[in-house]
């Protein structure tokens, strides 16, 4: 028991061996509020880098301390604000530390046994803790991320929510789920991350590519979802959260149960069910927006002091209706739909999910292990397999009615080995990665493959060093190299092949000539280098500065390379280019942070210069049998994005708190200075919250979110001649909607149900004033208003 509660770095002994350093400091870590003992608290002695944890009864012991030397001991606990204590000892001493225990007040069981690790030291990370995640239990991961400054979301209705970090999204951000890089066809604008929010214990956002251990192509940033940590003790506990929502007349239930043993074995089973009918805007029903989600995850592991092993499996399945009136056949029907104030199709409320819709299944299986070696450090090994199956149904006729328009299966195998070793003031991380991915596009859809069949091989290697110069300065530097090879089989129509000029550029890749099309075998290689350099400077006890410069390289994704035809879901012709090179981004990220008991403040300006940035823009209209279609073509250019994220909070007194958030980002194409499309408009959130622990931990908050109109956007409008009406009309797909202001009210109270069970009752009202609004970042904004008022009742039972 003691042996694994006590973690003493051997190095600490080496550095102090010359003195007579054999004193021991011991004591307890105590909750300031109720005097209870905190297990699993981490104590870090800054001078010696000794790290120990408190045992189950809150007791710690630090040995090998020197007499008459000043030590500063930082005490951390997952549910508390970290606190640093300074002291000197002359003999073996006993000292108790008190921490303010501010989260999960009524939880009988502390779920997290030890603090989560930092992903990078020179970029200020942002976290979403479990309590906040639970509020979004019936929503999506994207909704929860949206609560952080610098993050917005690209939506397609309410069910498909893709995070945008500092203006970038899709292939330009990396999502890590339980240590596994998600391979869920993230390139698509209407492909949301396939992660159940309820399986996440903590979300971390790194707004730069600096966490190179996860990949070198995170131009926008990295989102890391981690599972719940399990304490090493004999226990059986769980929680159930039920949410009912008025808008959509549905809700969700999620449950998890954990069994742990003090010999280190643990297992968790977790599942989620969500069911919503058509949601409503302020004035009308949004027909065919029902959704259903079914998720399950299972974890089994062994955690010992110097080794551990864990298996994890998760299944995610969602079926999401796509607003019926957003289905446009061609440019003139798009004009009709856009010019109509209300959606053209408004039906009665239903729970049925009709066409068009998406049905996505994501399975993830992972096995990982670690072992601590004296000489080598901590070695992690991981193998994971992901299977992503995406079906997209469209409005089709006759016998094809129930045949999906898109049927893709993406299988990915990844092997990772990471090594972490700490020397005196230096921590080294290095590792290698190998990945094999195969995409299968089912030809039975009867619609030409949007993404061709391909095999992809990736190899990566990285080295990151983190050096603590002294109490004030810390530097971090890293480098990573990735090699990618794509072996694709792609059919081109004869006329397209010639029109693109490929007949002259790539005559060698044709492997088969059919009557109207050619089978080609493009083999593409990409060598990507990425690097990071940064520092962290503690200006004073209250303030610190983070600086990071990172270089990210991203190989073009399959849709950028291979698109060559009609994209049914958005009724436009998209043209990729086989000649594309990797994008290279240079991001400068600076954060100043001030923290005190009453006032917290951080300001984070950034600049991101991206060479060979791949963007898509309209180049004209093409006449087809179905009328005119917009033609959009990908092209590479140099762009820059810059902006600032500001967070501030002020505690007026123990009960009242003000929080403020502001995010601003601008993006332009260099050279012609044209604004980039889909840049998040300036937005600010301001919140006033009241809490009273004595009154059943009552919490009340009112949040105001003001989103400005985006005044800088590229003009992608078309003049379209509508034959039937004999008029020329403007297809306005560019003008952003007006600014809007939303209010959100939230309240919760805790009740003790029995000795071991606690109930939390929460009530939330979003869009309190039932405002009609449209968001620039919602792909359905042309066709319908966004969500109206929604009452959410949230019940959480811990047992």
């Amino acid at each position, binding site marked *: 028991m003691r042996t694994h509660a006590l973690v003493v770095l051997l190095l600490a002994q080496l550095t102090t061996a010359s003195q007579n350093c054999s004193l021991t400091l011991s004591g307890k870590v105590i909750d300031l509020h109720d005097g209870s003992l905190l297990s699993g608290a981490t104590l870090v002695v800054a001078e010696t880098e000794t790290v120990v944890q408190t045992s189950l009864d809150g007791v710690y012991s630090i040995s090998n301390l020197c007499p008459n030397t000043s030590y500063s001991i930082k005490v951390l606990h997952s549910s508390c604000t970290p606190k640093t204590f300074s002291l000197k000892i002359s003999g073996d001493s006993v000292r108790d530390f008190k921490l303010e225990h501010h989260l999960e007040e009524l939880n009988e069981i502390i779920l997290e046994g030890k603090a989560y690790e930092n992903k990078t030291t020179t970029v200020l990370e942002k976290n979403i803790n479990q309590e906040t995640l639970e509020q979004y239990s019936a929503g999506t991961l994207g909704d929860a991320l949206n609560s952080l400054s610098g993050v917005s979301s690209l939506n397609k209705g309410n069910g498909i929510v893709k995070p945008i970090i500092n203006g970038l999204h899709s292939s330009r951000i990396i999502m890590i789920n339980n240590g596994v890089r998600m391979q869920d066809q993230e390139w698509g604008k209407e492909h949301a991350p396939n992660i159940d929010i309820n399986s996440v214990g903590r979300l971390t956002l790194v707004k730069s590519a600096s966490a190179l251990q996860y990949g070198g192509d995170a131009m926008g940033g990295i989102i890391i979802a981690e599972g719940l940590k399990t304490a090493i003790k004999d226990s059986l506990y769980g929680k159930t959260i039920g949410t009912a929502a008025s808008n959509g007349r549905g809700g969700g239930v999620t449950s998890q149960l954990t069994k742990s043993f003090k010999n280190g074995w643990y297992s968790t089973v977790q599942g989620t069910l969500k069911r919503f009918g058509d949601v409503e805007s302020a004035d009308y029903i949004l027909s065919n927006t029902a959704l259903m989600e079914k998720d399950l995850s299972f974890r089994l592991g062994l955690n010992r002091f110097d080794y551990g092993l864990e298996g994890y499996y998760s299944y995610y399945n969602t079926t999401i209706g796509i607003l019926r009136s957003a289905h446009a*056949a*061609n440019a*003139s*029907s798009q004009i*009709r739909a856009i010019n*109509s104030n209300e959606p*053209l*199709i408004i039906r009665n409320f239903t729970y049925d999910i009709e066409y068009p819709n998406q049905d996505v299944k994501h399975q993830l299986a992972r096995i990982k292990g670690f072992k601590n070696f004296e000489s*080598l450090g901590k*070695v992690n*090994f991981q*193998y994971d397999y992901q299977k992503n199956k995406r079906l997209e149904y469209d*409005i*089709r*006729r*006759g016998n*094809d009615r129930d*045949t999906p328009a898109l049927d893709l299966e993406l299988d990915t195998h990844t*092997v*990772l*080995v990471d*090594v972490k070793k700490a020397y005196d003031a230096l921590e080294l991380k290095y590792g*290698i990665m*190998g990945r*094999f991915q*195969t995409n299968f*596009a089912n*030809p039975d*859809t*009867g*619609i*030409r*493959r949007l993404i*061709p*069949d391909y*095999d992809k*091989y990736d190899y990566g290697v990285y080295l990151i060093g983190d050096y603590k110069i002294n109490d004030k300065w810390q530097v971090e530097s890293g480098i990573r190299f990735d090699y990618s090879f794509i072996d694709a089989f792609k*059919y081109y*129509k*004869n*006329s*397209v092949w010639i*029109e693109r000029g490929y007949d002259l550029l790539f005559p060698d890749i044709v*492997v088969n000539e059919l009557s*109207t*099309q050619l*089978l080609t075998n493009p083999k593409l290689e990409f060598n990507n280098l990425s690097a990071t350099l940064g520092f962290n400077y503690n200006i004073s006890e209250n303030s610190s500065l983070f600086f990071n410069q990172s270089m990210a390289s991203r190989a073009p994704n399959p849709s950028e390379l291979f698109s060559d*035809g009609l994209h049914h879901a958005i009724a436009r*012709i998209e043209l990729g280019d086989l000649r594309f090179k990797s994008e290279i981004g240079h991001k400068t990220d600076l954060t100043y942070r001030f923290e005190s008991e009453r006032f917290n403040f951080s300001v984070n300006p950034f600049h991101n210069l991206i060479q060979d940035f791949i963007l898509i823009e309209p180049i004209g209209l*093409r*006449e*087809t*049998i*179905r*009328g005119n*279609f917009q*033609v959009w073509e990908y092209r590479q250019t140099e762009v820059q994005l810059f902006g600032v994220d500001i967070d501030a909070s002020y505690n007026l007194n123990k009960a009242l708190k003000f929080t403020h958030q502001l995010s601003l980002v601008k993006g332009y194409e260099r050279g012609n200075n044209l604004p980039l499309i889909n840049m998040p408009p300036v937005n600010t959130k301001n919140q006033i919250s009241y809490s009273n622990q004595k009154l059943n931990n009552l919490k009340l908050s009112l949040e105001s979110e003001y989103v400005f109109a985006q005044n800088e956007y590229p003009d992608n409008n078309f003049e379209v001649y509508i*034959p*039937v009406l*004999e008029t020329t009309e403007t297809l306005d797909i560019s003008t952003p909607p007006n600014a809007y202001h939303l209010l959100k009210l939230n309240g919760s109270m805790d009740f003790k149900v029995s000795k071991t069970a606690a109930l939390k009752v929460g009530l939330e009202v979003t869009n309190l004033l039932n405002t009609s609004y449209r968001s620039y970042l919602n792909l359905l904004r042309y066709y319908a208003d966004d969500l109206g008022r929604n009452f959410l009742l949230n019940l959480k039972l811990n047992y």
Partner: protein
Amino acid sequence: MKKQILLFPMLILSLVFTGCSDDDDPAPVEELEVITTVVVTLTDTNNVEYEMRWEDPDYAVGNITAGYSGVTSIPEGFYSGEIQLYNNTLPIDDEEYIVTNEILEAGEGGDIDHLFFYSGLGGLVLNSLAYEDSDVNGDPIGQQFSLVGVAGTGELSVMLVHEPEKDADGMPDDVWNGVGDDEVNLQFPLTISTQ
């Protein structure tokens, strides 16, 4: 020690990768719902046929090689009309070669959820446009139609709409009210001359 640790995953990777290689070429997609050819035939009272065509031979969803052909000029007078749709990417004896057959297949309750619309654009004036066919519920289809052509130059607009609102006010005599999806949206250049 270190070497062994790095070799282990390499071994697994090599197993995984060799296990997955199969070099079968993927089959071409047999495209469904394809209309490569639209033929409008106008027959005058003397049984003289005038044929107008639109073709997109490799169905590249675009006008790279697509275009109109056939008659561009007809005399004034009464015509009975017929439209046929084909999928030229299929062999001629394939049952789905003539797309019109599928369009005319009745769904539940005898409904046919397609409707053709015709109109004259520009200086082309068509009088007495009429539907000459209907489904079992009496709703029009428009695969058979009739018109009286008056001298002028312009375009003959032909639309096929899937899932229209056949019961809506003014349908189908007025222009399409916008509900449903266009499957055909073509404008045949046409001059009607005085006899």
